[in-house]
């Protein structure tokens, strides 16, 4: 049975580490939906958040193959109760007449308008991917010019954190 899984991986911040990890996924045939990476407060380490789709067998293999890499320090599976956020920027056609409708949608979704021109509006939203998808659906009637989305960033709730020990 296949479903979505999210892994948080702490890696050494070396040149080529992103290439090494994405290479691993490519050659083992794993299906990666999204991947974000950024430095942690300790500049020696970066945190990768990997969203994948597959079976439990695939998940186990991915975790074990990642663990074999010298530069991977720690791997955890982010559970469903964690905080997930994805940033989305959407540019739509917006004339004087349609502007009000767009602003209304933004209010409902707690999104903001990052840019406004005489013909376009760029909406910024940071939320669960499902909420972002919902806003995108509703914005489509205005005519979507382009969309830029990041992958998922995730942190566990409460005191739990990804540590090196």
């Amino acid at each position, binding site marked *: 049975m296949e479903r979505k899984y999210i892994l948080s991986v702490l890696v050494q911040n070396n040149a080529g580490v992103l290439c090494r990890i994405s290479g691993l996924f490519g*050659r083992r045939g794993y299906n990666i939906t999204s991947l974000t990476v950024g430095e942690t407060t300790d500049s020696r380490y970066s945190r990768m958040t990997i969203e994948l789709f597959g079976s439990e067998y695939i998940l186990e293999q991915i975790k074990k193959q990642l663990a074999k890499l*010298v530069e991977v320090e720690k791997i955890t599976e982010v559970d469903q109760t964690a905080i997930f956020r994805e940033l989305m920027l959407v540019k739509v056609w917006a004339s004087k007449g349609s502007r009000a409708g767009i602003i209304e949608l933004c209010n409902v979704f707690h999104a903001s308008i990052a840019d406004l021109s005489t013909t376009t509006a760029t909406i910024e939203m940071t939320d669960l991917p499902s909420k972002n998808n919902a806003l995108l659906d509703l914005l489509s009637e205005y005519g979507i010019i382009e969309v830029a989305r990041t992958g998922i960033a995730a942190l566990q709730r409460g005191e739990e954190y990804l540590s090196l020990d």
Partner: protein
Amino acid sequence: MLKKGAHIVLECLREQGVDRVFGYPGNAILSIYDALYDYKDSVRHVLMTHEQHAAHAADGYARATGKTGVVLSTSGPGATNLLTGLSSSYMDSTPVVAITSNVTKNCIGKDSFQEVDIFGISMPVTKHNFMVKDVHSLADTIRSAFAIASSGRPGPVLVDILSDVADNECEYTPVVPLKPIRPLSADDIDFAAAASLINESSRPMIFAGGGIIASGAGQELRELAEKICAPVALSLMGIGCFSRNSEKYAGMLGMYGTGTAAACTQDCDLLIAIGTRFSDRSVPLPESFATDAKILHIDIDPAEINKNVPSSISLIGDAGRVLTELLPLIADKQENPLLRHLQKKAVPFWESTGGMRPSRLLETLGRVAGPNQIYTTEVGQNQIWAARNLPVSGPRKFITSGGLGSMGFGLGAAIGACIGTGKPVINIAGDASFYMNLAELSTAVTYRLPIVEVILNNRSLGLVRQIQKTACNGRYSEVDFDRPTDFCALAKAFGAKEWKIEKEADAEAVFLEALALGGPCVIECTIDPDEPV
């Protein structure tokens, strides 16, 4: 002490106890080869004719001795030529360190002469790799490379050094390397569970692979087999870890293995797999493999557990360490119904064509060479005949490219094994494999190596042709090597002695003479192309 990068490389090799390296120079690696000149008495270089075979030589050296093999090559084409050798080492988990030189810092990323992103290219086929852009991290990087190559599940590590790094200076202090790690993660609960599984079984069998050899756990394996009265089947990589003469030896398991081993897996209620990864050659159809049995999988690499074959219980750790912990917990068994499969007489696989039989030739060779002989093989029919028929008596005496199956591996590996052990080595080859590495005969001659190259010449790409016979209805597409090459004249041209055997009866005398020679030689045996494995 202030030293140039190139000298630091050599000093680090000495720290590791490296006294032989295989390689091929070039422009980018000039400084390191110049430094090598000053280390002639402590780090001796073997000049091969192609970087691929230098990598195979480092690999053969590692497999024969257990020490880490070292290969040097220049940038660009020199580095890319290593890839087949590195992949072979990666697939068979052997400890090799490859040191390549790249262009200078200013030239990187500009499509410079002989520039190639070997760091990027070798990532998928190395256990780990490094690119050294600063001389201050050079020594520690090389030390890490050796530690990674030889600890846990061994594997090849590549270190790419920019050529100006080799010319820059920095402080160098020697460091004594730590012993390689032999890990053990299984705990008391795991061992208790595994012991229960074994004690409750009535028809256990053992399937052992290369991990037993890497761990040096032949004795523990023997003890286990005796204790639970179990038949032992081996993977291709495991050949030599258990005695063929034992009444518990079931033969090789898998695609080209024995019926006895297959019967045992069908009939057992517990399969104890040690140091093997259940490759698709050992277990072509995992869904129908040992369906009535539970599987206890013992391996150093947790990623292999449940990768190809699901197991009931696993013990993660070095094979020898795991078996040492496990043996005291296991009760003796007095009998095992599986052993009746071993009493059946071996049925020959196919009718022979009427020409010389490779099985007979190799049996004779084995008898003449004696129990301590080291063998290497090429890939294909020659490899299968060798695996089945050579009387390999111990670990590190049968060196073959199992996981990658690279033709051309054998002669380079034989050179490495010979240099490493100082003992004579016999390479079993096909004619097609020989075409891939024949120039290395000149290396064997130059270094006066006692290597016997046995060419089973069927003037074709044998195994592919055999598969085409059935799978493609005899449409032999591009497998014809019926070329007018005179292999004996070729051997002579390189300066090696040569013999040609055309009748089985002549074989023994030729083998005796060749082995008494103590130098490189070629024995060509004419085999019918229709002779199947």
